[in-house]
């Protein structure tokens, strides 16, 4: 039975890699944005004396995860519902969890690769030093919680997608909007109106970006965060709560077919 789940993962990855449009326009898009932002604003330094390109690199990993987990999961599921993949699988003895593990393997692999590409750009293009060894442990749990929360939310939101052609457009609205208000594109967040800062703090993206900045930025950058603190406890809590919300929404909204009445 494990073999079936691994076989699903293999098939998912094979299909993703063969879809050149997805590889170029989805997978490499965050790296392209990072190159643009980093080049345009790279020479500026924040109040704490950290190069803007380094801050973008760290924050943009949150975008990377949104892209590979939330968008890929959400649009992939909408498409699988529409093109008959789910209907076909449901008529076979393959268990539903094998399908979901296959998707999870795809999303995990893509997210790791996406993070590696973004960190690679940061190190090679923008001279970002790699963080001390202890920070990688923090990176691992923030990354894992982010991927889980975003994937589950992607599954949940896919239920709202009536037509797979619109999936990218629908899923990218929260992605782009949240990045503007969550300190990814505009940092520090204190530039935002107070109420917007509070609203943004309800969503996971702010906490993902803040956590990744902790991992990759020097300690003096902490002063730039809201409340002057990395607040890792809150990062863990908000992401954990979103994992639970995502799971509940998934169980509540999951449908095998787009036509099921």
């Amino acid at each position, binding site marked *: 039975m494990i073999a079936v789940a691994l076989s699903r993962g293999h*098939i998912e990855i*094979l*299909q993703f890699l063969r879809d050149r449009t997805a590889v170029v326009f989805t997978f490499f898009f965050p790296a392209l944005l990072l190159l643009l932002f980093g080049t345009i604003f790279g020479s500026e330094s924040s109040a704490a004396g950290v190069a803007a390109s380094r801050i973008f690199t760290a924050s943009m990993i949150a975008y990377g995860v949104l892209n590979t987990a939330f968008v890929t999961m959400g649009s992939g599921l909408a498409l699988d519902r529409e*093109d*008959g993949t789910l209907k*076909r699988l449901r008529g*076979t*003895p393959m268990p539903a969890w094998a399908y979901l593990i296959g998707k999870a393997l795809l999303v995990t692999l893509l997210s790791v690769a996406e993070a590696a590409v973004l960190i690679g750009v940061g190190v090679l293009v923008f001279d970002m030093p790699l963080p001390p060894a202890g920070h990688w442990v923090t990176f691992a749990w923030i990354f894992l919680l982010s991927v889980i929360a975003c994937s589950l939310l992607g599954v949940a939101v896919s239920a709202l997608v009536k037509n797979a052609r619109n999936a990218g457009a629908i899923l990218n609205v929260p992605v782009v909007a949240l990045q503007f208000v969550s300190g990814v594109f505009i940092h520090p967040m204190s530039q935002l109106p107070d109420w917007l800062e509070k609203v943004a703090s309800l969503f996971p993206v702010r906490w993902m970006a803040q956590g990744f900045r902790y991992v990759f930025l020097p300690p003096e950058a902490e002063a730039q965060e809201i409340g002057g603190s990395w607040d890792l406890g809150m990062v863990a809590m908000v992401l954990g709560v979103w994992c639970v919300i995502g799971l509940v929404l998934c169980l509540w909204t999951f449908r095998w077919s787009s036509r099921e009445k």
Partner: protein
Amino acid sequence: MEAIEVTGLRKTYGDRDAVAGIDLVVARGEIFSLLGPNGAGKTTTVEILEGHRRRTAGDVRVLGEDPGRAGSAWRTRIGIVLQDADDAADLTVHEMVRHVAGFYPNPRRPDEVIELVGLQAKRNSRIRTLSGGQRRRVDVALGIVGGPELLFLDEPTTGFDPEARRQFWDLIRTLAGDGTTIVLTTHYLDEAEALADRLAVVSAGRIVAEGTPATLGGRGAAQARVSWRADGTTRTEQVADPSDLIRHLVATGADLSTLTITRPTLEDTYLSLIGAAR
């Protein structure tokens, strides 16, 4: 034990009955065909039998189990050929058939199945590049790779050219010859006539006639129409048994090179059945 037993099947959407009380028995090893116009409830019925849809009421047994509750062990014994899937477009035929074979405990060999559906030449082609008819043959391959006892085919030859349809019919006969029970829904009456051991016509959610292709809707008992030419004009008579008339014609030396005897075609019978049900 029968392959399928259905009594009093109903499926209601809101206040509309998509299936309004169907009784059905399909024997093991039989090719059974469900005919009916679009929206008659064929697909809904079949999807309930496949376990894809829940029923509102009625008793359903497929291979001895209730498809609404049956688990993966039951699904290893059935095969479903989807009507309009376009999944796995970026995989090759062999990759996809092998992948699906991996879901079953005792699958058929993927290459054997690919050969059976006549796609050896396309074994390593991406499914995206296949023609419509080839694509449907992939669906058949995926439906039979698990070695099912019971195979569901929902309008399998839509979009086939005539030659591809004939080849497809041969494939279905081969499967039936190996003992597979086959449930076929179709719009094509010639297809049902060529393949089905028994068939039922569904209209407005009910079965309005059931029988063999030769006897459906009283077709076997219908009067024969005998035509021949005599004295430069076409003469026609309707008789229950043409034997006496023919003997008479032979005795009187009529020109039998123009003789035709026709009974209502399956299409005539079908159209009058669904016409009467409306």
